[in-house]
């Protein structure tokens, strides 16, 4: 598996504003794999993603992208990653196309109208709203455009911070199918969520994060899904402690 390993955290320790937010977590994600990071508010999920992007230098341990220490070549690491932030991150004064065109241009990606239409169809963004500015969008509609952007980046690795937040049930289902398809086509997905059921549906492996520590890992048996019940139990019992 060593060669296909895309993401790796090794005894990762992060301190933010003097507070230890991640205390030595270790895990790795291989290509073609969906890894779900599950945890309560403030557990350190978003922090984990930010440290993979090189925004937060580790105070201890190390982070590797495709086997290379992130901070030794931040730019290369970032080019290999599509990142979906946890909150609104696109421009309000632009419509969906303009937003996608701008960010894709900056990522030095060609603007392929057909791919864009197809992707927006895939995330179920209504076609009549695509030429409207994002200031007139609902939360879920914005999220759909942001997801579309992450997919259009066509990178090896996707870091998704609560991707389904704000989405309606049918959009969530469709999104899970989409993530599976991406993984099956060889992409590596690290996804942060609160949603136990959704995580179990889509993830190959699942890490339970609590107060900056990785307190449990679940792996889907070959050809099956992770058992929701077990995760749920672990999640709530650990929380109750």
């Amino acid at each position: 598996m060593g060669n296909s390993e895309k993401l790796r955290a090794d005894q990762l320790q992060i301190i933010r504003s003097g507070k230890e937010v991640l205390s030595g977590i270790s895990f790795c994600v291989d290509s073609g794999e969906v890894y779900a990071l599950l945890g309560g508010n403030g557990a350190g999920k978003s922090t984990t993603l930010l440290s993979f992007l090189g925004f937060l230098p580790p105070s201890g341990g190390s982070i590797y992208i495709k086997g290379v220490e992130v901070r030794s070549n931040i730019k290369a690491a970032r080019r290999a990653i599509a990142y979906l932030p946890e909150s609104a991150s696109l421009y309000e004064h632009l419509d969906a196309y303009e937003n996608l065109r701008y960010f894709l241009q900056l990522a030095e990606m060609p603007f392929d109208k057909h791919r864009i239409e197809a992707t927006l169809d895939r995330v179920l963004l209504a076609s009549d709203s695509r030429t409207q500015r994002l200031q007139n969008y609902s939360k879920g509609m914005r999220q759909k455009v942001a997801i579309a952007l992450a997919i259009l980046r066509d990178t090896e690795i996707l870091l998704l911070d609560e991707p389904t937040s704000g989405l309606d049930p049918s959009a969530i289902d469709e999104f899970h199918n989409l993530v599976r398809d991406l993984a099956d086509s060889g992409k590596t997905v690290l996804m942060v969520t609160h949603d136990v059921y959704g995580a179990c549906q889509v993830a190959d492996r699942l890490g339970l994060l609590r107060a900056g520590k990785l307190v449990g890992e679940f792996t889907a048996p070959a050809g099956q899904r992770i058992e929701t019940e077990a995760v749920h139990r672990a999640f709530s019992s650990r929380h109750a402690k």
Partner: protein
Amino acid sequence: MNTALIIASEEWRYWLRSSLAISVVALFTIILIAVSLLTSLRISEEDTERSHHQSEAEQSFLSQPDRHPHRMVHYGHYILRTSPPLALFDPGLDSVTGQSMFLEGHRQNSATFSSLGASADLGGLSWLTPAMIYQVFAPLLIVLLGHSAIVREREAKSLAPLLAQGVSGFQIVAGKTAALLLFVLFLLIPLLVSAALSLPKGEDILTVVSLLIVYFLYLSVWVILTLSVTTMLQKRPAIIAVLAALWLTLTLVLPSIAVNVASRLAPVSGKIETELAMLTEVRNVSDGHNVNESDLEQLRSSLFEEYGVNRVEDLDVNIRGIVSQRAEEKLTESMNIFADRRMEGEVRQAKVVMKHGWASPMLAIAFASRALSATDLEHYHHFLRQAETLRYDFVQGLNEVHSEQLSYADDINRNLSEASYNRTRIDAENWGLLDEFRFETTTSTKRLKSAGLPIMMLITWMIGLFAILVWASTRLKP
């Protein structure tokens, strides 16, 4: 580079879609155009009047009847200075120094405000000039537009995905800088127009181009300053507070401190004080009519030798004219010492103010702009010297006429009878010795040279801030 340009054009699209940005720029443009129009209207009206009065004064001197030449020395002459072409943009010191002067024998009068200037005064708004708008208000506009360039993205959380895509902080800041610099070029269009309009009025292309470059430099300093602050600080209120404080300090507080410091460090003695000192000293030298006994003796013997005579009555020239000439010469010499001293004092004071340009780019641009527009202290002194030359020439011309065309005998007997008095009137044609007065500025190279130090200051500001901006941009955090 390409990335920076994409970011720059996106910044422009944001501005064009933001009603605040558009209305602020529109307001600025309207004010600028209104002030430019009013200023050029005021100055050209004043200039028309001044040239009119100038030719009237010349006419009136020339049309004096036959007279004793010394009466013409006291009749005197009035000169008015018209504005250099770029004064329409930057009237500089012209609005606080006098533009007209009465020239007569034995005295150096100071420049005064011609009463006609007041006719076109726009209710006390004449301090608000196009140059002032560029120096004080354009920076405010840059701050308004630029302060949020980075923090806006941080607030909208778009900074994280940008950086996460591999766009560097330097590229983002470079893009914002390019956008604002292009905006500065747009801001300079009205200046370009008014500077270009000065070309047919005789302004040099070198000056016009330098003026544009200097203002571009100045406004670029503000662009880089604004972006440095918005890049270094995380929160919008802090950014706004710091930029507002900087604007107030650099454009309003420091310039007035500089003036205060200068009047302490390099005081120019009050006008009345100097005038009294001068009168006492100068009167010891000569009153402009007579010279002291020993000088007279010397003058007389050299003339006797030259003409081979030994009585004043036998000289071919009228010794009274010669004496007047010598008296005016000596008097002027000592008046010039005072005038020079005064001007040197003013220059020293101006230099102290100018040094503060190292601390306030607004002072640097003010000096550079006035120097290039020919409305600085140097040009005011230039005017005083030009006026003095004209005064001295016509007085001495009249004294020469006095010595050559009026016999000594007639001259001393002029009070015997009306007939003898009339014999001392010389032909009015001689009044034609008066030269026309047309204020002339120094050459464009000279002006550029005197703008040299302030330009150096602006370049230093630019380089220093640029280094800070680059440093800050590589540390940009979402």
